[in-house]
C-alpha cells in the first residue's frame, strides 16, 4: 500500500506546491483571476435570487478546492445581503465509489456549521463537475449528517461527460471538453494564484475520473 498521489495529500503540500507550479501552468488559460471573481459574484447573486435572500442557506465546499470557493461565495452573498452565510466543508473520501481502485487516500475535513443542516438549503460547491460521481458521494455523505430541506449544486466549471443523472444549479462556465483533456482549477488559497487551465492529459494534475 502506498500513499495517495501527492496532489491529494496534505503532507508535503504546505500551501503553494512549488514543485508542481511550472507544469501546472501548461495548457490554455480558460479563466483569468478577474473572470473567476466575476463568475463567483454572478453565482452569489443567482443563489440569492433562487433562495429568496439566502435566508436558510448553508454552503458546503468539497475539498480541496470547493472549500475556498464556498468561502468566497459566502463572503459575496454577505456583501449583498448583509447577514453572514454559514459555510463549511464536506469531505467525501469515505463515500467514494472508486476507493478500491486506488490506494487509500488522505482524508479531508468535514466541518459543518454549528447550527447543522437540518431544514436548511444546502448548496454544495465544487470546482469542476465531470462524471458526477463526486456529487453522488457528497449526497450520500450529506445523508449521514442530517436532512436538508433541499440540496443544490454550484460548480465553477462544468466540463460535461456526466456518468450519473446529476445536473448543477449554478454554473460558472460551461466548458466543452474531450475526455483526453484535463481541466485544472488553481485558487490562491491552495495554489497561490487564481486561474482555470485546459490542458492535454499527461500535463500532470487534472481531476481523477
Amino acid at each position: 500500500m502506498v500513499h495517495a498521489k501527492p496532489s491529494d495529500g496534505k503532507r508535503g503540500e504546505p500551501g503553494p506546491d512549488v514543485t508542481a507550479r511550472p507544469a501546472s501552468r501548461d495548457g490554455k488559460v480558460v479563466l483569468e483571476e478577474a473572470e473567476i471573481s466575476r463568475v463567483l459574484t454572478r453565482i452569489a447573486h443567482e443563489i440569492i435570487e433562487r433562495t429568496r435572500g439566502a435566508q436558510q442557506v448553508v454552503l458546503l465546499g468539497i475539498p480541496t478546492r470547493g472549500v475556498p470557493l464556498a468561502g468566497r461565495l459566502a463572503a459575496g452573498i454577505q456583501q449583498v445581503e448583509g447577514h453572514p452565510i454559514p459555510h463549511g466543508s464536506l469531505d467525501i473520501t469515505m463515500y467514494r465509489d472508486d476507493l478500491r481502485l486506488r490506494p487509500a487516500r488522505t482524508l479531508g475535513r468535514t466541518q459543518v456549521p454549528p447550527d447543522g443542516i437540518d431544514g436548511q438549503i444546502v448548496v454544495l460547491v465544487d470546482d469542476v463537475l465531470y462524471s458526477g460521481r463526486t456529487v453522488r458521494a457528497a449526497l450520500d455523505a450529506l445523508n449521514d449528517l442530517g436532512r436538508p430541506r433541499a440540496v443544490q449544486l454550484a460548480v465553477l466549471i462544468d466540463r460535461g461527460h456526466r456518468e450519473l443523472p446529476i445536473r448543477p444549479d449554478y454554473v460558472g462556465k460551461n466548458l466543452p471538453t474531450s475526455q483526453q483533456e484535463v481541466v485544472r482549477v488553481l485558487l490562491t488559497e491552495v495554489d497561490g494564484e487564481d486561474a482555470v487551465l485546459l490542458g492535454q492529459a499527461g500535463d500532470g494534475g487534472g481531476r481523477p475520473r
Partner: protein
Amino acid sequence: MNRHLISSADLSRDDALLVLDTADELARISDRPIKKLPTLRGRTVVNLFFEDSTRTRISFEAAAKRLSADVINFSAKGSSVAKGESLKDTALTLEAMGADAVVVRHNASGAPHRLAEWVHGSVINAGDGAHEHPTQALLDAFTIRRRFGRSSGSGGAGAAPAPGGALDGLRVTIVGDILHSRVARSNVILLHTLGAEVLLVAPPTLLPVAVDTWPCSIDYDLDAALPKSDVVMMLRVQQERMNAAYFPSVREYSRRYGLDSARMAQLPERAIVMHPGPMNRGVEIAAGVADSPRSTVVEQVANGVSVRMAVLYLLLGGAEDTQ
C-alpha cells in the same frame, strides 16, 4: 505503508503521522448523529483472539463496525483451538472464509508475523506475547498529541486542515514492568520515530535483556525522573506472565515505582499520566492519580477506536498495490 501492521517499526515517520492525521478526522465522526461510514462495506474483519482482552477487542470491533465492515469475533475459548487445532489450520480456515483483515492477539511473540505468511488479507497485530502492540502505541501517541495541542490544526472553515505535528522534544517516561510489556516496546519504537525522548524507569529485574539497544535511556529512580517528564506512562505488573520473583513484595514495588499523589505533585504542570489498562489500582498507580484530571486513561480508550478506524481504513480502504 505496509500491507500488515505487525510492529511499530513497520511505520515510517510519515506513515505514523498519516495514521494520526487520519484518526484526527475520523474522531470527528463520534460527534455526529450517525456514527457510521460506508467505506469498508462488504469487507470482512476477523478478530482472532487467543488471549483475553476487553479494551482492544471491543475497540477493534467498534472501529470495524463504524466503517461498515463485517466483523467476525473469534476467541480461542470455545473454538477448535481448544481441541488442539494449530494456528496454521485456524489461519487457513479464515482464509477460506475470505477475511480481508485479521486482527490477531496471541500469547506467543511472532505469531502475527507467521500468520501474515499464511493469509492473503492484512494482518494487524493486537498484541503478541511480550513483543509488540502497535495500535496501542499509535493511540498513545495520538493521545499525547491531542493533549499537547499538536493535532492537525483547526484551520477554520476555510482551508484544508493543516497536518498535525510530531512529538519532537517531548519527554516520555515509561515506568514499570518493561520486561513483560509489549506496550513498552511498541511505544519506545513509535515515540522515537515521532521524535520524543523516551526514558524507561523500572527495577533492573524488570528490564529486558537487550534493552540497551533500544532507542531510549534507562533509569532506576522514579523520583529523579518525574520532574523532567512531560508524559508518564505507568505499566501494569503482569503477574500472569511472571514465573519468578522479580521484586521482594508488591508493597515494596509500589513504594518505589508506584505513582501516588505525592509523586504526581513532582510532575511539571502540563504533564499527563497515561496507563494502557487494565490498571491495578494501589500497585503501580494510586486511585487518586488514576481519577485525576491529568490521567488520560479514559481518553486513551476513546481514542483507541479512532486510531483503529484509521489503521483499518489505511490498510483496507484502498486498492492493494501488491499486484
